């Protein structure tokens, strides 16, 4: 592969080429081996400072980035919205410029506003890694999803991936759509019409409101968490009806092809978007996603951190 990485920031998958995505996945492959060694640490980012700046709460993604940074020998600081000066009225720009004045090399940002990572990337010399911005993108989640599919199925091109659930408010869905389409997959979005508007078809995906029609044809189903605590009530009548129409129940899981992968970015609501037994079943790769997330984030930090120096 002749691709070379030239980006200091990872803001989303929409801006990446298929070659660049594959390059990250290859790099992640090398780092995955590191996790199986007795000494799980490499000196790639020794002397570099990484700031995990999580303006919106997260456990899984923050921990994954933190661990990835430790394994690359970077120094890590964690800042959450509650402990940052944002609560004292400081702007995002000023907080970030202060971090840069402390010579932070890499800023991992989780933020509730779409575009916040790009806003900082345009203004800082440090690398900015998007760890999820509003309903916009969550590139490392999509990269680890792609990695997991490729690891299990040997390819992405030609596979039929169904993304099921709250698409409208999902940054995971958008990053997956961009990544999957660039790598040649076929994508069908499934969910209530209020959360999967037809406008998505213009992105090059199919939209279906009948999960039972889609499940038998899918090679991968990626279930998104129903974020019922964040939603206005008018989007769907209630969880009971959601489960009836779109939940991956045990009965529905029988419609899946035997080799169909079941994925979920977590945290899962057992008994809502996915039945508890199905989540733990043989087709589920949910925990593999978590493991692969570490390798993918090491790759991203290594590649972007290398450019920033």
């Amino acid at each position: 592969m002749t691709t070379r990485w030239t980006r200091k920031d990872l803001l989303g998958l929409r801006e990446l080429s298929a070659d660049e995505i594959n390059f990250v996945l290859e790099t992640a492959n090398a780092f995955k081996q590191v996790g199986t060694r007795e000494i799980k640490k490499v000196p790639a980012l020794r002397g570099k400072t990484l700031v995990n700046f999580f303006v919106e709460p997260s456990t899984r993604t923050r921990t994954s980035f933190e661990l990835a940074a430790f394994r690359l020998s970077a120094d890590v600081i964690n800042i959450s919205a509650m402990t940052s000066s944002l609560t004292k009225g400081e702007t995002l720009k000023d907080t970030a410029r202060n971090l840069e004045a402390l010579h932070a090399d890499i800023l991992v940002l989780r933020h509730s506003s779409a575009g916040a990572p790009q806003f900082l990337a345009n203004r800082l010399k440090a690398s900015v890694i998007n760890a999820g911005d509003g309903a916009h993108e969550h590139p490392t989640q999509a990269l680890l999803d792609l990695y997991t599919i490729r690891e299990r199925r040997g390819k992405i091109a030609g596979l039929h991936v169904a993304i099921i659930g709250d698409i409208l408010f999902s940054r995971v869905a958008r990053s997956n759509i961009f990544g999957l389409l660039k790598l040649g997959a076929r994508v069908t979005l499934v969910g209530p019409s209020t959360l999967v508007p037809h406008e998505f078809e213009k992105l090059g995906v199919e939209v279906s409101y009948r999960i039972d029609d889609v499940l038998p044809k899918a090679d991968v189903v990626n279930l998104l968490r129903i974020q019922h605590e964040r939603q206005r009530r008018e989007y769907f009548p209630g969880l009971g009806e959601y489960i009836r129409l779109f939940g991956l129940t045990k009965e529905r899981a029988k419609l899946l092809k035997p080799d169909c992968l079941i994925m979920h970015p977590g945290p899962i609501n057992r008994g809502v978007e996915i039945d508890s037994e199905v989540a733990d079943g043989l087709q589920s790769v949910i925990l593999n996603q978590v493991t692969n997330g570490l390798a993918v984030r090491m790759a991203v930090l290594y590649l972007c951190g290398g450019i920033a120096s």
Partner: protein
Amino acid sequence: MSATIIRNGRVIDPANKRDEITDLLLVDGKITDQSAIRSPPSEIEQIDASNLIVCPGLIDMHVHLREPGFSHKETIESGARAAAAGGFTTIVCMPNTSPVPDNPSTIAWIKDRASAIACVKVLPTGAISKNLAGEELAPIGSLAQAGVVAITDDGHCIQNHEVMRRAVEYARMVNLPVLDHCQDYNLVGNGVVHEGYWSTLLGLPGWPAAGEEAIVMRNILLAELCDHPIHCQHLTTAGSVRLVREARARGIKISGEVCPHHIALTDEAIQNFDTNYKVNPPLRSQTDIDALVEGIADGTLSILCSDHAPHADFEKEVEFDAAPFGIIGLETELGLFLDLLVHKLRKIDLARLIEMYTVEPARLLKIDAGTLSIGARADVTLIDSELEWKVRVDQFESASRNSPFSGWTLKGRAVRTIAGGKTVWKL
């Protein structure tokens, strides 16, 4: 006495259906004719207007001057200078200030301030509802006596149709037009950009076209019910144009205005999350732009304006969701409309453009402006319609810089602005 003669210009005065190469005389702050000249020729100021348009001073009936309360964004003084630099001699300021002009004393303050320091005429609007809250009527009769030219809750929209109905009925009694910012709060929710392809792609909360159209329709029904003019501010959607066109064909007293950014830019411009493109109502699709332009061409949309909305850099330099809505426009609007409507799209001619900036707003607001009739106040704008110029935001007279048009090359602009017989700005 002071006298000025503007020589050899192409005088376009839509109010008097004039379009001819001639001289224009200004004496003691009034438009006059040869007979009024008593000064010796050596004391008459001579302005050569060869190859220039000489027209009535332009009127922008939708401007935010931010005073009182937000003078870090703009002041009546700086906003008036920006207006002069854009070719405007009359501007109408919106009531979303602090305090809100929902009382005669705030109106008096604005008028005093303007007469003391503004280089162009500033006409205040009063609030429709107390504190722009949309619940109780402001003292509209007292506001009329204090000298407002219209009432509006601009920046806000009265959601309760009954409150709006009574406001329009009451305004009719005191002969004030009602201007409305058309936005249904339930449909729009926390929308920040046009609901469509780009909001879907970027995951930004969408502001659907129906959120504007629902209120335009409401206003048509109330204008008919109350038999009184309602003017829909900054219209942006194809549906709004269709609704207004149909209603006007039935003789209903409804009108609409267009801002330049809504025909110069589509929602694609937001893709880099640059908050200088964040405006309310939002930038829309090409289909909407095409409909707005057709609406301008066939007279459905009769007024051009800027919705000049200044914000300080530090306020705009934040996350997209958190940034305030608004674009400054006084110093680019004439250039943009000339460039787009007259030169590029050739949808209207110069005379109609001038009419939409003079006769139309003057008629709606019943103000004594927008004409070169003998005896009128000597408000005159000189326009070079062929001049190509580059927008330099850093050289604006406005106190703010939130324009997405920095670096654009436009064809046509004002080159001299004369207010009350005095040159208040000159290129």
